[in-house]
Each structure stands twice: as structure tokens, then as C-alpha cells.
């Protein structure tokens, strides 16, 4: 009995130590291909049905000047970084009910990591996003 309990504690400790919330390293080359899914509504350098992605990292949600956001996005207390993007891309309407981004999300964690890796590069590119 003692042995079984000790084993359970060890298994639990191992599970707790797993970085369940950590984001897998992303591949920006794959991420660029995944971004094709976003191009009905988004572009890097200019606003479309969705806001532009240049300057995305570190920007407050609803923070592109002049873009007409949903009230949910405009009032969200979120700053975009790898973690918040991962949560949003996994389930946009779950994280932010009322968002105009009526998209079920990207279920595959690795795909999200790849897309985020590419967005991190491209949204800060001086060619795509001149100052």
C-alpha cells in the first residue's frame, strides 16, 4: 500500500513538472505557410476586414489606430505576446467572446507555435513593416 502511494506521488510530481503551458519552439517557415489561412481577412502592412499585423508583438489588443474593432476586442485587457497569441489562436471566441474573428481556431499546438514564430519575425520586418 505504501509502495503504491509513493508511486502515485512520484507520477503526480512528474506530471506537475511537465511544462504543460510552455509553447513548443516554432518554425517560421512553416508558420508563413500557415499564415495563408489568415489572408481572407488580414495582411501584415495594412488593415483589411481584420487589423494589420505589423507591430503586433507588445501591442495592446484593439490597439491599431483607426481600425474599427468589436467592443470585445477594444475593451480587452490583453497585450499580444507569444502566450496571449497562443491562447487566442487556439480558440478566439473562447478567449474573447464577442470578437469579430469568427474563426474556430488552430487546434494543433505546433501549428500555433509555427505561426507565432513567423508573426514575431514578419510583424517586425523593416521591409514588410517600414517605420
Amino acid at each position, binding site marked *: 500500500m505504501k509502495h503504491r502511494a509513493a508511486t502515485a506521488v512520484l507520477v503526480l510530481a512528474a506530471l506537475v513538472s511537465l511544462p504543460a503551458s510552455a509553447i513548443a519552439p516554432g518554425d517560421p517557415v512553416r508558420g508563413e505557410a500557415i499564415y495563408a*489561412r489568415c*489572408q481572407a481577412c488580414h495582411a501584415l502592412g495594412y488593415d483589411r*476586414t481584420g487589423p494589420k499585423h505589423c507591430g503586433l508583438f507588445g501591442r495592446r489588443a484593439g490597439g491599431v489606430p483607426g481600425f474599427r474593432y468589436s467592443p470585445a476586442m477594444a475593451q480587452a485587457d490583453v497585450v499580444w505576446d507569444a502566450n496571449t497569441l497562443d491562447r487566442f489562436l487556439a480558440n478566439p471566441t473562447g478567449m474573447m467572446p*464577442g470578437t469579430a474573428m*469568427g*474563426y474556430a481556431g488552430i487546434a494543433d499546438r505546433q501549428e500555433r507555435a509555427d505561426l507565432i514564430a513567423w508573426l514575431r519575425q514578419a510583424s517586425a520586418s523593416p521591409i514588410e513593416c517600414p517605420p
Partner: protein
Amino acid sequence: MIVRINPFFALQDLGRRRFLAGTGATLSAAAVALMAGRPALAAGQGSKHDDLETDVRILNTALGAELEAIAAYAMGAGSGLLQKPVLDLAVQFQGHHKEHAAVLAKTIRKLGGTPVEAREHYQFPTDGLKTQNDVLGFAAGLERGAVSAYLGAVPLFRGRELASAAASILGDEAMHWAILRQALGQDPVPTAFMS
């Protein structure tokens, strides 16, 4: 023979029914339920209203993208870069997007919403469009994105009839994408699945 269909036919009665059940009548029912001390029933009625709002919001996002696609094809057709028969193809695809937009706007109104309107000005990457293939590649990117957008929207619709109708539009966008890839000399159907 191609039979022209109305993918939103199933909504012709449903729209009115859901509207009545989801807005004014629903709020009255919710108020009655609250007054009768039945908060669970009131909450249920409120969630129907939320469902309607969700569907209208998704439809309006789709409509916004369709209106932009119409403008994009107008830009492409007017660029002077497209030669027949590719030019005819662009005009035909633009016509499809006009049909999508019209039926989306009509459905939004049926559900009690207000359809978004076309912008006065759309921004397109015209500096990078120098040849027919540039225009085709740009259009293919929009169509490919549209497939993903509808694919991502279909599971979110609270009304199954709306999901079915959106899937019908998705099929058309996928055909556009394949034809444009073919015109570009690319594999028209590069994968077995879309995402």
C-alpha cells in the same frame, strides 16, 4: 446542365422563426420567466439571443471579406494586366462574390442584424502587381484565405442551416482557388485536406 441553387433557401422561414424566438419575443419571455421566479428559463431564453448575435457577427465578418473580394477583383480586372480568357474568369469570380455578399446581407437582415457596407476605399498591394501572374497570385491568396475563413466559421454557427450555407460558399471559394492555381501553372489541388 448546371442548376443554380440558393444555399440559404432553408433559412427563408427559419430566419423569421429564429428572429422571433431570439430577439423581441425572447426578451419578453425571459422577462416573464424572471418575474415568475424561473431564472434558469430566463437564462435559456437569453442564450438564444446570444446565439443570434453570434451568428450575425460571423456572417458580418464573412460579408466584410466578400465585399473586399469584390473590390479586389474589380481592381484586378481594371488593372489592364489580365488578358482574356483570364479576364473573363476574374469577372465571373467577382460575380460569385457579389452573389455571396447579397445572400449574406439578406440573411443578416432576416436575423435582425445590420449588414456591414462596402468601404469607400480598400487598400491592395498594387505596387507588387506588375504582371498577370502577380494579379492571379494575389487573387489566389485571397481565395485560399477565404476557404480557411469559412472552414473556421462553419463550426461556430449556432444555426446548423447557416453552417450548411457557409459550407456551400466554401466550396465555391475552393473552386476559385484551384482554378487560379491552374492558371498560374501550379498544382490546382495540392493537398487532400484544407485547413
